[in-house]
Protein backbone atom coordinates (compact mmCIF):
# COMPACT_ATOMS: atom_id res chain seq x y z
CA UNK A 1 0.00 0.00 0.00
CA UNK A 2 2.52 2.48 1.12
CA UNK A 3 4.85 1.70 -1.75
CA UNK A 4 2.11 2.20 -4.29
CA UNK A 5 1.12 5.47 -2.69
CA UNK A 6 4.72 6.62 -2.72
CA UNK A 7 5.01 5.94 -6.40
CA UNK A 8 1.77 7.67 -7.20
CA UNK A 9 1.80 10.69 -4.93
CA UNK A 10 5.47 11.35 -4.19
CA UNK A 11 6.18 13.53 -1.21
CA UNK A 12 2.57 14.24 -0.34
CA UNK A 13 1.65 10.63 -0.02
CA UNK A 14 4.84 9.89 1.86
CA UNK A 15 3.94 12.60 4.32
CA UNK A 16 0.38 11.41 4.76
CA UNK A 17 1.31 7.80 5.21
CA UNK A 18 -0.76 6.51 8.16
CA UNK A 19 2.50 5.46 9.84
CA UNK A 20 3.38 9.13 10.16
CA UNK A 21 -0.08 10.33 11.09
CA UNK A 22 0.79 10.74 14.76
CA UNK A 23 3.98 12.64 14.07
CA UNK A 24 2.28 14.80 11.46
CA UNK A 25 -0.51 15.84 13.81
CA UNK A 26 1.91 16.66 16.62
CA UNK A 27 4.29 18.64 14.43
CA UNK A 28 2.48 22.03 14.26
CA UNK A 29 2.18 22.27 18.04
CA UNK A 30 5.76 21.19 18.55
CA UNK A 31 7.01 23.69 15.96
CA UNK A 32 5.28 26.61 17.68
CA UNK A 33 6.52 25.43 21.06
CA UNK A 34 10.00 24.96 19.72
CA UNK A 35 10.21 28.41 18.18
CA UNK A 36 8.59 30.29 21.03
CA UNK A 37 9.67 28.29 24.09
CA UNK A 38 12.27 25.62 23.62
CA UNK A 39 14.56 27.55 21.32
CA UNK A 40 14.57 30.64 23.59
CA UNK A 41 15.21 28.31 26.51
CA UNK A 42 18.27 26.86 24.86
CA UNK A 43 19.38 30.33 23.88
CA UNK A 44 19.25 31.55 27.42
CA UNK A 45 21.00 28.40 28.53
CA UNK A 46 23.82 29.34 26.18
CA UNK A 47 23.81 32.94 27.35
CA UNK A 48 24.23 31.82 30.93
CA UNK A 49 27.83 30.85 30.12
CA UNK A 50 28.80 34.25 28.71
CA UNK A 51 29.02 37.74 30.15
CA UNK A 52 26.42 39.31 27.90
CA UNK A 53 24.59 42.53 28.72
CA UNK A 54 21.61 43.38 26.50
CA UNK A 55 22.26 47.08 26.99
CA UNK A 56 25.89 47.05 25.95
CA UNK A 57 27.67 47.01 22.60
CA UNK A 58 30.58 44.95 23.92
CA UNK A 59 31.12 41.52 22.36
CA UNK A 60 30.30 38.89 24.98
CA UNK A 61 33.03 36.54 26.11
CA UNK A 62 32.81 32.99 27.37
CA UNK A 63 32.77 32.75 31.13
CA UNK A 64 32.10 29.08 31.79
CA UNK A 65 30.27 28.38 35.00
CA UNK A 66 31.22 31.65 36.65
CA UNK A 67 27.70 33.09 36.38
CA UNK A 68 26.32 30.08 38.23
CA UNK A 69 29.07 30.41 40.78
CA UNK A 70 28.27 34.07 41.32
CA UNK A 71 24.56 33.49 41.65
CA UNK A 72 24.85 30.52 43.99
CA UNK A 73 27.37 32.25 46.23
CA UNK A 74 25.27 35.40 46.44
CA UNK A 75 23.71 35.70 49.90
CA UNK A 76 20.96 37.88 48.48
CA UNK A 77 19.82 35.09 46.17
CA UNK A 78 19.49 32.66 49.07
CA UNK A 79 17.64 35.23 51.12
CA UNK A 80 15.19 35.67 48.22
CA UNK A 81 14.70 31.94 47.86
CA UNK A 82 13.80 31.75 51.55
CA UNK A 83 11.35 34.63 51.20
CA UNK A 84 9.81 32.95 48.17
CA UNK A 85 9.46 29.66 50.02
CA UNK A 86 7.78 31.39 52.94
CA UNK A 87 5.32 33.25 50.74
CA UNK A 88 4.61 30.21 48.57
CA UNK A 89 4.15 27.98 51.61
CA UNK A 90 1.75 30.22 53.46
CA UNK A 91 -0.17 31.30 50.39
CA UNK A 92 -0.72 27.77 49.12
CA UNK A 93 -1.77 26.59 52.57
CA UNK A 94 -4.29 29.39 52.79
CA UNK A 95 -5.59 28.70 49.28
CA UNK A 96 -6.04 25.07 50.21
CA UNK A 97 -8.03 25.78 53.34
CA UNK A 98 -10.25 28.42 51.76
CA UNK A 99 -10.59 26.55 48.49
CA UNK A 100 -11.55 23.40 50.33
CA UNK A 101 -14.19 25.11 52.44
CA UNK A 102 -15.65 26.84 49.39
CA UNK A 103 -15.76 23.54 47.52
CA UNK A 104 -17.67 21.87 50.35
CA UNK A 105 -20.12 24.72 50.16
CA UNK A 106 -20.67 24.46 46.42
CA UNK A 107 -20.74 20.67 46.28
CA UNK A 108 -24.47 20.74 46.95
CA UNK A 109 -27.03 21.64 44.33
CA UNK A 110 -29.10 24.63 45.29
CA UNK A 111 -31.12 27.31 43.53
CA UNK A 112 -29.06 30.06 41.83
CA UNK A 113 -25.89 28.03 42.30
CA UNK A 114 -24.58 29.17 38.95
CA UNK A 115 -24.83 32.80 39.91
CA UNK A 116 -23.46 32.47 43.43
CA UNK A 117 -20.55 30.47 42.06
CA UNK A 118 -19.69 33.34 39.72
CA UNK A 119 -19.28 35.63 42.74
CA UNK A 120 -16.51 33.38 43.98
CA UNK A 121 -14.89 32.80 40.60
CA UNK A 122 -14.51 36.49 39.70
CA UNK A 123 -11.26 37.22 41.61
CA UNK A 124 -9.39 34.86 39.26
CA UNK A 125 -10.37 37.02 36.30
CA UNK A 126 -8.92 40.24 37.67
CA UNK A 127 -5.47 41.35 36.64
CA UNK A 128 -2.64 41.01 39.14
CA UNK A 129 -2.04 44.72 38.76
CA UNK A 130 -5.51 45.74 39.87
CA UNK A 131 -5.55 43.24 42.74
CA UNK A 132 -2.20 44.61 43.89
CA UNK A 133 -3.25 48.24 43.65
CA UNK A 134 -6.55 47.84 45.45
CA UNK A 135 -5.26 45.59 48.22
CA UNK A 136 -2.52 48.13 48.81
CA UNK A 137 -5.24 50.76 49.11
CA UNK A 138 -7.23 48.56 51.50
CA UNK A 139 -4.15 48.26 53.73
CA UNK A 140 -3.22 51.97 53.58
CA UNK A 141 -3.23 53.24 57.19
CA UNK A 142 -5.04 56.52 56.47
CA UNK A 143 -7.36 55.80 53.55
CA UNK A 144 -7.68 52.02 53.63
CA UNK A 145 -10.93 50.31 54.59
CA UNK A 146 -9.16 47.42 56.33
CA UNK A 147 -7.18 49.83 58.49
CA UNK A 148 -10.31 51.87 59.09
CA UNK A 149 -12.20 48.87 60.45
CA UNK A 150 -9.33 47.57 62.56
CA UNK A 151 -8.66 51.04 63.98
CA UNK A 152 -11.94 50.73 65.89
CA UNK A 153 -10.32 48.05 67.99
CA UNK A 154 -6.80 49.35 68.38
CA UNK A 155 -5.21 52.32 70.03
CA UNK A 156 -2.48 52.96 67.45
CA UNK A 157 -2.91 53.10 63.72
CA UNK A 158 -3.04 49.71 62.10
CA UNK A 159 -0.05 49.58 59.75
CA UNK A 160 -0.05 46.13 58.20
CA UNK A 161 2.82 46.66 55.77
CA UNK A 162 5.12 48.19 58.41
CA UNK A 163 6.73 44.95 59.52
CA UNK A 164 8.22 42.08 57.50
CA UNK A 165 5.64 39.65 58.86
CA UNK A 166 2.75 42.00 58.16
CA UNK A 167 3.97 42.70 54.64
CA UNK A 168 4.19 38.99 53.89
CA UNK A 169 0.69 38.54 55.31
CA UNK A 170 -0.57 41.37 53.12
CA UNK A 171 0.80 39.72 49.99
CA UNK A 172 -0.36 36.25 50.97
CA UNK A 173 -3.90 37.43 51.65
CA UNK A 174 -4.17 39.11 48.25
CA UNK A 175 -2.72 36.15 46.39
CA UNK A 176 -4.74 33.58 48.29
CA UNK A 177 -7.95 35.52 47.76
CA UNK A 178 -7.29 35.60 44.05
CA UNK A 179 -6.46 31.92 43.60
CA UNK A 180 -8.46 30.02 46.21
CA UNK A 181 -11.28 29.68 43.64
CA UNK A 182 -8.86 27.71 41.49
CA UNK A 183 -8.27 25.23 44.29
CA UNK A 184 -12.00 25.20 44.86
CA UNK A 185 -12.60 24.07 41.27
CA UNK A 186 -10.15 21.20 41.66
CA UNK A 187 -11.55 20.04 44.98
CA UNK A 188 -15.08 20.41 43.70
CA UNK A 189 -14.14 18.15 40.82
CA UNK A 190 -13.00 15.58 43.36
CA UNK A 191 -16.10 15.89 45.46
CA UNK A 192 -18.49 15.38 42.58
CA UNK A 193 -16.55 12.34 41.43
CA UNK A 194 -17.31 10.40 44.61
CA UNK A 195 -19.79 7.68 43.61
CA UNK A 196 -23.12 8.35 45.24
CA UNK A 197 -23.72 4.76 46.30
CA UNK A 198 -20.80 4.97 48.70
CA UNK A 199 -22.57 7.71 50.62
CA UNK A 200 -25.78 5.74 50.57
CA UNK A 201 -23.95 2.73 51.94
CA UNK A 202 -22.41 4.87 54.67
CA UNK A 203 -25.82 6.15 55.60
CA UNK A 204 -27.16 2.64 55.94
CA UNK A 205 -24.17 1.80 58.19
CA UNK A 206 -24.96 4.92 60.23
CA UNK A 207 -21.36 6.02 60.00
CA UNK A 208 -20.56 9.35 61.64
CA UNK A 209 -20.04 12.39 59.41
CA UNK A 210 -16.37 12.51 60.23
CA UNK A 211 -15.94 8.81 59.49
CA UNK A 212 -17.78 9.21 56.20
CA UNK A 213 -15.54 12.07 55.28
CA UNK A 214 -12.37 10.26 56.31
CA UNK A 215 -13.10 6.94 54.69
CA UNK A 216 -15.11 7.93 51.64
CA UNK A 217 -14.67 11.59 50.67
CA UNK A 218 -11.04 12.11 51.58
CA UNK A 219 -9.58 9.26 49.54
CA UNK A 220 -11.29 10.69 46.48
CA UNK A 221 -10.01 14.22 46.94
CA UNK A 222 -6.63 13.34 48.46
CA UNK A 223 -4.64 13.31 45.26
CA UNK A 224 -6.58 16.23 43.88
CA UNK A 225 -5.56 18.22 46.95
CA UNK A 226 -1.95 17.22 46.41
CA UNK A 227 -2.31 18.20 42.81
CA UNK A 228 -3.74 21.56 43.80
CA UNK A 229 -0.80 22.08 46.14
CA UNK A 230 1.72 21.39 43.42
CA UNK A 231 0.02 23.36 40.70
CA UNK A 232 -0.45 26.38 42.93
CA UNK A 233 3.07 26.04 44.28
CA UNK A 234 4.47 26.23 40.79
CA UNK A 235 2.26 29.18 39.92
CA UNK A 236 2.93 31.08 43.15
CA UNK A 237 6.63 30.60 42.56
CA UNK A 238 6.23 33.02 39.67
CA UNK A 239 4.47 35.63 41.82
CA UNK A 240 5.66 39.02 40.66
CA UNK A 241 3.15 41.81 40.04
CA UNK A 242 1.36 41.61 43.39
CA UNK A 243 4.62 41.79 45.32
CA UNK A 244 6.03 44.51 43.13
CA UNK A 245 2.94 46.68 43.55
CA UNK A 246 2.04 46.09 47.20
CA UNK A 247 5.49 46.28 48.79
CA UNK A 248 8.15 46.69 46.06
CA UNK A 249 9.88 43.92 48.01
CA UNK A 250 9.95 45.96 51.22
CA UNK A 251 10.18 46.73 54.02
CA UNK A 252 13.88 46.42 53.29
CA UNK A 253 14.13 43.21 51.32
CA UNK A 254 11.73 41.17 53.41
CA UNK A 255 9.21 40.43 50.67
CA UNK A 256 11.53 40.41 47.68
CA UNK A 257 10.74 37.14 45.92
CA UNK A 258 13.02 35.39 43.47
CA UNK A 259 10.76 36.49 40.62
CA UNK A 260 11.15 40.15 41.58
CA UNK A 261 14.89 39.75 41.94
CA UNK A 262 15.14 38.00 38.60
CA UNK A 263 13.24 40.84 37.01
CA UNK A 264 15.54 43.44 38.53
CA UNK A 265 18.65 41.57 37.42
CA UNK A 266 17.37 41.14 33.90
CA UNK A 267 15.63 44.43 33.20
CA UNK A 268 16.94 47.02 35.58
CA UNK A 269 20.55 45.93 35.85
CA UNK A 270 20.68 44.34 32.38
CA UNK A 271 22.91 41.54 33.68
CA UNK A 272 21.51 39.32 30.99
CA UNK A 273 23.84 36.36 31.43
CA UNK A 274 23.71 36.33 35.19
CA UNK A 275 19.95 36.48 35.14
CA UNK A 276 19.88 33.57 32.68
CA UNK A 277 21.95 31.52 35.09
CA UNK A 278 19.60 32.38 37.93
CA UNK A 279 16.63 31.63 35.68
CA UNK A 280 18.05 28.17 35.01
CA UNK A 281 18.40 27.45 38.68
CA UNK A 282 14.76 28.49 39.07
CA UNK A 283 13.77 26.29 36.14
CA UNK A 284 15.58 23.33 37.68
CA UNK A 285 13.54 23.73 40.85
CA UNK A 286 10.35 24.05 38.84
CA UNK A 287 11.13 20.87 36.90
CA UNK A 288 11.58 18.99 40.15
CA UNK A 289 8.22 20.31 41.27
CA UNK A 290 6.69 19.37 37.93
CA UNK A 291 7.88 15.81 38.38
CA UNK A 292 6.26 15.70 41.78
CA UNK A 293 3.13 17.08 40.17
CA UNK A 294 3.11 14.37 37.52
CA UNK A 295 3.74 11.73 40.13
CA UNK A 296 0.68 12.98 42.00
CA UNK A 297 -1.44 12.94 38.87
CA UNK A 298 -0.39 9.38 38.08
CA UNK A 299 -1.18 8.28 41.59
CA UNK A 300 -4.62 9.74 41.16
CA UNK A 301 -5.11 8.00 37.84
CA UNK A 302 -4.15 4.65 39.34
CA UNK A 303 -6.56 5.09 42.22
CA UNK A 304 -9.46 5.76 39.90
CA UNK A 305 -8.64 2.89 37.62
Amino acid at each position, binding site marked *: MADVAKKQGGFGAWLFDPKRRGALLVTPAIV*VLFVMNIFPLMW*SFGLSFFNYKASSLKVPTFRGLSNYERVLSDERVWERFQTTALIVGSSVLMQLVIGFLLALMFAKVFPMRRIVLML*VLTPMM*LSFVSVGVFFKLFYEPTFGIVSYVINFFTEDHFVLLGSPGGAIAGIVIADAWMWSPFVMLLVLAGLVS*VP*KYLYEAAEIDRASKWRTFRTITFPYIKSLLLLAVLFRTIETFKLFDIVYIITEGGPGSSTETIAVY*LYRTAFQFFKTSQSSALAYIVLFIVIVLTNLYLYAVNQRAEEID
Partner: protein
Amino acid sequence: MARKYREIGKAGWGYTAITTIVGFIYFSPVFWIILTAFKTRRDALAVPPKLFFTPTLDNFMSVFYRTSITTGNSQATDMGLYFFNSIFIAFTSVGLAIILGTLAAYAFSRFPLKGNDTYLFIILTTRMMPPIVVIIPIFLMFRLTGLAGSYWGIMLLYTAFNIPFSVWLIKSFFDELNPEIEDAARMDGSSERRVFFGFCIPQILAGLAATFVFGLILTWNEFLFALLLTGVETRTVPVAMARTLGGEVGVDYGLLAAIVTLFLIPIFFVTFLLQNQLLRGVTFGTVKK
Protein backbone atom coordinates in the same frame (compact mmCIF):
# COMPACT_ATOMS: atom_id res chain seq x y z
CA MET B 1 -17.60 5.28 29.79
CA ALA B 2 -17.64 8.99 30.35
CA ARG B 3 -18.10 9.69 34.01
CA LYS B 4 -21.45 11.18 34.90
CA TYR B 5 -21.56 14.54 36.56
CA ARG B 6 -22.79 13.80 40.07
CA GLU B 7 -23.82 15.95 42.99
CA ILE B 8 -23.46 14.95 46.59
CA GLY B 9 -26.57 16.63 47.85
CA LYS B 10 -29.41 18.97 47.18
CA ALA B 11 -30.37 22.00 49.19
CA GLY B 12 -33.06 24.66 49.13
CA TRP B 13 -33.38 28.41 49.24
CA GLY B 14 -32.21 28.62 52.84
CA TYR B 15 -28.88 27.22 51.72
CA THR B 16 -28.85 29.70 48.85
CA ALA B 17 -29.17 32.54 51.35
CA ILE B 18 -26.17 31.32 53.36
CA THR B 19 -23.98 30.75 50.35
CA THR B 20 -24.97 34.10 48.92
CA ILE B 21 -23.76 35.81 52.08
CA VAL B 22 -20.46 33.94 51.96
CA GLY B 23 -20.22 34.58 48.23
CA PHE B 24 -20.73 38.30 48.75
CA ILE B 25 -18.11 38.47 51.45
CA TYR B 26 -15.71 36.79 49.07
CA PHE B 27 -16.81 39.07 46.26
CA SER B 28 -16.64 42.25 48.36
CA PRO B 29 -13.19 43.43 47.19
CA VAL B 30 -14.43 43.18 43.60
CA PHE B 31 -17.61 44.95 44.62
CA TRP B 32 -15.52 47.72 46.18
CA ILE B 33 -13.53 48.06 42.96
CA ILE B 34 -16.72 48.34 40.90
CA LEU B 35 -18.08 50.88 43.39
CA THR B 36 -14.86 52.88 43.08
CA ALA B 37 -15.41 53.10 39.34
CA PHE B 38 -18.36 55.37 40.06
CA LYS B 39 -16.54 57.60 42.56
CA THR B 40 -14.69 60.86 42.20
CA ARG B 41 -11.13 60.87 43.48
CA ARG B 42 -12.27 62.65 46.62
CA ASP B 43 -14.91 60.02 47.31
CA ALA B 44 -12.54 57.18 46.52
CA LEU B 45 -10.10 58.40 49.17
CA ALA B 46 -12.66 59.69 51.65
CA VAL B 47 -12.18 58.86 55.34
CA PRO B 48 -14.30 57.10 56.54
CA PRO B 49 -14.66 55.05 53.35
CA LYS B 50 -17.91 55.83 51.55
CA LEU B 51 -20.46 53.16 50.76
CA PHE B 52 -23.08 55.72 49.73
CA PHE B 53 -22.20 58.60 47.47
CA THR B 54 -23.36 60.44 44.38
CA PRO B 55 -22.26 58.20 41.52
CA THR B 56 -20.42 59.70 38.57
CA LEU B 57 -19.80 58.33 35.10
CA ASP B 58 -16.74 60.53 34.61
CA ASN B 59 -14.34 57.64 35.10
CA PHE B 60 -15.99 55.66 32.32
CA MET B 61 -15.87 58.73 30.09
CA SER B 62 -12.18 59.19 30.73
CA VAL B 63 -11.47 55.58 29.84
CA PHE B 64 -12.10 56.67 26.25
CA TYR B 65 -11.57 60.42 26.38
CA ARG B 66 -9.15 62.26 28.57
CA THR B 67 -9.38 65.90 29.37
CA SER B 68 -6.15 67.71 30.06
CA ILE B 69 -6.42 69.34 33.48
CA THR B 70 -4.24 72.18 32.28
CA THR B 71 -5.65 73.08 28.88
CA GLY B 72 -9.11 71.52 29.23
CA ASN B 73 -8.79 69.92 25.80
CA SER B 74 -10.16 66.46 25.26
CA GLN B 75 -8.28 63.71 23.47
CA ALA B 76 -9.31 60.20 22.50
CA THR B 77 -7.28 57.61 24.40
CA ASP B 78 -7.18 54.72 21.90
CA MET B 79 -8.65 52.56 24.64
CA GLY B 80 -11.16 51.23 22.13
CA LEU B 81 -8.27 49.92 20.07
CA TYR B 82 -6.68 48.36 23.15
CA PHE B 83 -9.92 46.57 24.00
CA PHE B 84 -10.05 45.30 20.44
CA ASN B 85 -6.41 44.21 20.65
CA SER B 86 -6.95 42.38 23.93
CA ILE B 87 -9.98 40.55 22.67
CA PHE B 88 -8.47 39.83 19.26
CA ILE B 89 -5.12 38.66 20.61
CA ALA B 90 -6.53 36.58 23.47
CA PHE B 91 -9.30 34.90 21.48
CA THR B 92 -7.11 34.23 18.45
CA SER B 93 -4.19 32.82 20.36
CA VAL B 94 -6.32 30.69 22.67
CA GLY B 95 -8.24 29.49 19.60
CA LEU B 96 -5.03 28.69 17.73
CA ALA B 97 -3.67 26.88 20.75
CA ILE B 98 -6.81 24.78 20.92
CA ILE B 99 -6.64 23.87 17.22
CA LEU B 100 -2.98 22.88 17.38
CA GLY B 101 -3.52 21.32 20.80
CA THR B 102 -6.45 19.22 19.57
CA LEU B 103 -4.44 17.84 16.65
CA ALA B 104 -1.52 16.99 18.89
CA ALA B 105 -3.72 15.61 21.65
CA TYR B 106 -5.55 13.38 19.19
CA ALA B 107 -2.23 12.01 18.02
CA PHE B 108 -0.93 11.46 21.55
CA SER B 109 -4.13 9.68 22.44
CA ARG B 110 -4.69 7.56 19.32
CA PHE B 111 -1.36 7.17 17.58
CA PRO B 112 1.23 7.12 20.39
CA LEU B 113 4.73 7.93 19.22
CA LYS B 114 7.88 6.37 20.49
CA GLY B 115 8.62 8.21 23.72
CA ASN B 116 5.10 9.57 23.91
CA ASP B 117 5.33 10.33 27.63
CA THR B 118 8.64 12.13 27.24
CA TYR B 119 7.16 14.44 24.63
CA LEU B 120 4.19 15.09 26.87
CA PHE B 121 6.47 15.86 29.79
CA ILE B 122 8.59 18.27 27.78
CA ILE B 123 5.47 20.03 26.58
CA LEU B 124 4.16 20.37 30.10
CA THR B 125 7.49 21.65 31.39
CA THR B 126 7.32 24.63 29.07
CA ARG B 127 4.06 25.64 30.71
CA MET B 128 5.43 25.21 34.20
CA MET B 129 8.41 27.46 33.90
CA PRO B 130 8.28 31.05 35.09
CA PRO B 131 7.89 33.38 32.10
CA ILE B 132 10.93 35.37 33.14
CA VAL B 133 13.06 32.35 32.25
CA VAL B 134 12.34 32.84 28.58
CA ILE B 135 11.68 36.54 28.43
CA ILE B 136 15.29 37.50 27.86
CA PRO B 137 15.89 35.25 24.84
CA ILE B 138 12.40 35.88 23.44
CA PHE B 139 13.15 39.53 23.73
CA LEU B 140 16.40 39.06 21.82
CA MET B 141 14.72 36.82 19.28
CA PHE B 142 11.97 39.34 18.63
CA ARG B 143 14.67 41.94 18.19
CA LEU B 144 16.32 39.89 15.44
CA THR B 145 13.19 38.75 13.62
CA GLY B 146 11.34 42.03 13.77
CA LEU B 147 8.39 40.38 15.51
CA ALA B 148 8.47 42.98 18.29
CA GLY B 149 5.44 45.21 18.19
CA SER B 150 3.48 43.08 15.69
CA TYR B 151 0.26 41.16 16.25
CA TRP B 152 1.97 38.01 15.02
CA GLY B 153 4.66 38.12 17.64
CA ILE B 154 2.47 38.42 20.69
CA MET B 155 -0.15 36.03 19.32
CA LEU B 156 2.37 33.30 18.54
CA LEU B 157 3.83 33.75 21.99
CA TYR B 158 0.49 33.45 23.73
CA THR B 159 -0.37 30.49 21.52
CA ALA B 160 2.80 28.77 22.63
CA PHE B 161 1.96 29.45 26.26
CA ASN B 162 -1.48 27.93 25.87
CA ILE B 163 -0.49 24.84 23.90
CA PRO B 164 0.86 22.69 26.78
CA PHE B 165 -2.18 23.17 28.92
CA SER B 166 -4.49 22.59 25.95
CA VAL B 167 -2.70 19.42 24.85
CA TRP B 168 -2.91 17.88 28.29
CA LEU B 169 -6.47 18.79 28.94
CA ILE B 170 -7.75 17.81 25.49
CA LYS B 171 -5.80 14.56 25.49
CA SER B 172 -7.63 13.54 28.64
CA PHE B 173 -10.95 14.12 26.87
CA PHE B 174 -9.91 11.94 23.96
CA ASP B 175 -8.77 9.28 26.41
CA GLU B 176 -12.26 9.22 27.88
CA LEU B 177 -13.88 8.38 24.55
CA ASN B 178 -14.52 4.82 23.49
CA PRO B 179 -12.18 3.94 20.60
CA GLU B 180 -14.36 0.99 19.66
CA ILE B 181 -17.00 3.30 18.23
CA GLU B 182 -14.34 4.94 16.10
CA ASP B 183 -13.06 1.59 14.91
CA ALA B 184 -16.60 0.55 14.07
CA ALA B 185 -16.99 3.72 12.01
CA ARG B 186 -13.73 2.98 10.21
CA MET B 187 -14.98 -0.49 9.41
CA ASP B 188 -18.05 1.06 7.88
CA GLY B 189 -15.75 2.93 5.53
CA SER B 190 -15.64 6.34 7.19
CA SER B 191 -12.51 8.29 6.32
CA GLU B 192 -10.09 9.32 9.07
CA ARG B 193 -11.26 12.86 8.59
CA ARG B 194 -14.85 11.83 9.19
CA VAL B 195 -13.98 9.83 12.28
CA PHE B 196 -12.18 12.84 13.70
CA PHE B 197 -14.69 15.53 12.81
CA GLY B 198 -17.84 13.44 12.87
CA PHE B 199 -17.31 11.28 15.95
CA CYS B 200 -14.55 12.57 18.19
CA ILE B 201 -14.86 16.34 18.08
CA PRO B 202 -18.62 16.54 18.79
CA GLN B 203 -18.15 14.40 21.89
CA ILE B 204 -15.48 16.60 23.44
CA LEU B 205 -16.98 19.99 22.60
CA ALA B 206 -17.68 20.63 26.30
CA GLY B 207 -14.06 19.88 27.09
CA LEU B 208 -12.87 22.20 24.36
CA ALA B 209 -15.06 24.92 25.86
CA ALA B 210 -13.51 24.36 29.27
CA THR B 211 -10.04 24.52 27.78
CA PHE B 212 -11.00 27.74 26.10
CA VAL B 213 -12.12 29.34 29.37
CA PHE B 214 -8.97 28.24 31.19
CA GLY B 215 -6.77 29.55 28.43
CA LEU B 216 -8.67 32.80 28.32
CA ILE B 217 -8.35 33.38 32.07
CA LEU B 218 -4.62 32.70 31.92
CA THR B 219 -4.07 34.93 28.87
CA TRP B 220 -6.52 37.75 29.50
CA ASN B 221 -4.51 39.65 32.08
CA GLU B 222 -0.97 38.89 30.93
CA PHE B 223 1.13 41.98 31.55
CA LEU B 224 4.88 41.48 31.31
CA PHE B 225 5.16 40.14 27.76
CA ALA B 226 2.48 42.53 26.58
CA LEU B 227 4.36 45.46 28.06
CA LEU B 228 7.68 44.54 26.51
CA LEU B 229 6.65 43.06 23.19
CA THR B 230 3.66 45.04 21.97
CA GLY B 231 3.85 48.34 20.13
CA VAL B 232 1.64 51.42 20.07
CA GLU B 233 -0.83 49.77 17.72
CA THR B 234 -0.85 46.35 19.33
CA ARG B 235 -0.93 47.39 22.98
CA THR B 236 -3.35 45.46 25.18
CA VAL B 237 -5.59 46.69 27.99
CA PRO B 238 -3.46 45.44 30.92
CA VAL B 239 -0.57 47.53 29.60
CA ALA B 240 -2.73 50.57 28.97
CA MET B 241 -4.15 50.10 32.45
CA ALA B 242 -0.76 50.98 33.85
CA ARG B 243 -1.27 54.60 32.87
CA THR B 244 -3.61 54.92 35.81
CA LEU B 245 -0.86 53.98 38.24
CA GLY B 246 0.98 57.27 38.42
CA GLY B 247 1.73 60.39 36.41
CA GLU B 248 0.64 63.79 37.63
CA VAL B 249 -1.20 62.07 40.47
CA GLY B 250 -0.70 58.70 42.11
CA VAL B 251 -3.01 55.83 41.29
CA ASP B 252 -6.15 57.09 39.59
CA TYR B 253 -8.36 54.67 41.51
CA GLY B 254 -11.60 55.64 39.80
CA LEU B 255 -10.19 55.31 36.30
CA LEU B 256 -8.39 52.06 37.08
CA ALA B 257 -11.58 50.65 38.58
CA ALA B 258 -13.54 51.72 35.51
CA ILE B 259 -11.11 49.98 33.17
CA VAL B 260 -11.05 46.88 35.36
CA THR B 261 -14.84 46.80 35.44
CA LEU B 262 -15.16 47.12 31.67
CA PHE B 263 -12.39 44.63 31.11
CA LEU B 264 -14.08 42.14 33.41
CA ILE B 265 -17.29 42.08 31.37
CA PRO B 266 -16.20 39.97 28.37
CA ILE B 267 -14.39 37.30 30.36
CA PHE B 268 -17.07 37.20 33.03
CA PHE B 269 -19.65 36.68 30.35
CA VAL B 270 -17.72 33.93 28.59
CA THR B 271 -17.04 32.15 31.88
CA PHE B 272 -20.66 32.37 32.90
CA LEU B 273 -21.82 30.88 29.61
CA LEU B 274 -19.33 28.04 29.77
CA GLN B 275 -19.48 27.48 33.52
CA ASN B 276 -20.80 23.93 33.48
CA GLN B 277 -18.20 22.95 30.92
CA LEU B 278 -15.54 24.53 33.08
CA LEU B 279 -16.44 22.27 35.99
CA ARG B 280 -16.59 19.28 33.67
CA GLY B 281 -13.24 20.19 32.17
CA VAL B 282 -11.57 20.27 35.51
CA THR B 283 -12.98 16.90 36.44
CA PHE B 284 -11.88 15.25 33.24
CA GLY B 285 -8.51 16.88 33.00
CA THR B 286 -7.41 15.85 36.43
CA VAL B 287 -9.13 12.56 36.92
CA LYS B 288 -7.27 11.17 33.98
CA LYS B 289 -3.65 11.85 33.32
